[in-house]
């Protein structure tokens, strides 16, 4: 299935814009609504869009299955690992003050940045994996039947 040229070009532009927005939501979550989860979902949407227009294979060339599967797990490790860092420095689990003992506020900010990053990576990874898993199945209803 090959879509119209205009659709393909605008998708490329749109996917880029959506990704940019995702990063904005990710890193601006301290100041405005948003954060890792929303950013992860939006990032995944960009890839889903790309996959819908260019086909599953094209999307998987950009982000292979292996990579997204590891992204799912990586985010959890980043988040939980932040806790282990504070644990190893003698603080309670997930106590971000451990990241900058001199200035607790900076430590908190760094901690929040790290864990939100972890959330974003996992959510994007899972959403894209789920899309790949669904899209990889042979469809039962043809396009005309809708």
């Amino acid at each position, binding site marked *: 299935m090959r879509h119209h040229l205009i659709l393909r070009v605008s998708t490329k532009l749109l996917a880029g814009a959506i990704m940019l927005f995702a990063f904005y939501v990710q890193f601006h979550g301290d100041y405005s609504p948003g954060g890792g989860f929303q950013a992860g979902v939006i990032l995944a949407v960009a890839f889903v869009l790309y996959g819908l227009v260019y086909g599953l294979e094209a999307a998987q060339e950009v982000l292979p299955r292996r990579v997204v599967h590891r992204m799912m797990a990586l985010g959890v490790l980043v988040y939980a690992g932040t806790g282990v860092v504070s644990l190893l420095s003698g603080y309670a689990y997930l106590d971000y003050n451990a990241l900058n003992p001199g200035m607790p506020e900076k430590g908190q900010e760094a901690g929040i940045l790290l864990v939100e990053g972890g959330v974003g990576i996992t959510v994007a990874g*899972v959403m894209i994996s789920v899309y790949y898993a669904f899209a990889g199945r042979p469809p039962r209803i043809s396009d005309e039947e809708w």
Partner: protein
Amino acid sequence: MIETGINIALFSMLVVTALVAVRLRHLFGVVMLAGAFSLLSALLLVTLDAADVAFTEAAVGAGISTVLMLGTLALTSRREKIPSHRPWLPLVVVLVTGAAIIYGTLDMPDFGAPDSPAQTGVAAEYIARSPHEIGIPNIVTAVLASYRGYDTLGEVGVVFTAGVGVLLLLGGLRARRRRGRPDGPDGEEG
């Protein structure tokens, strides 16, 4: 008051959407109604000052979840059959449950009351303490990622679990398995 008017409109649209979803048999339409329900609820959440939640509900309910449902319909079927059994028992269960919830709300403080336990409890502490303890403007993010950061770790765990589960179920491309083998010997030992 404009706000009251908006609220009444949103509430009635939400209730109607939900009720129509019960009757509709065309699954494509049902999924779309569910998306509309999420979008409307996101609007209502904005009027309730929950910007973060509204954002998420819109992205999830009207976005990702609708896409997944449509994907599922494409892989399965698009019409609902008329159920054969009479819906009396479910109706009784639902009415009893609903009555119980309404009974519980009778002693709840009025909507929006500033002196209710929910407002004066830990929540007040979060608002008072987060500026100097966390130092970021978005209180929701401060509570989410730090005070109750462990919940969020669990949440990421849930998402990861769902990912693992979906891959465990749908992992790998394979031709449809032969059927009619309720308890045959396991031929796929590896």
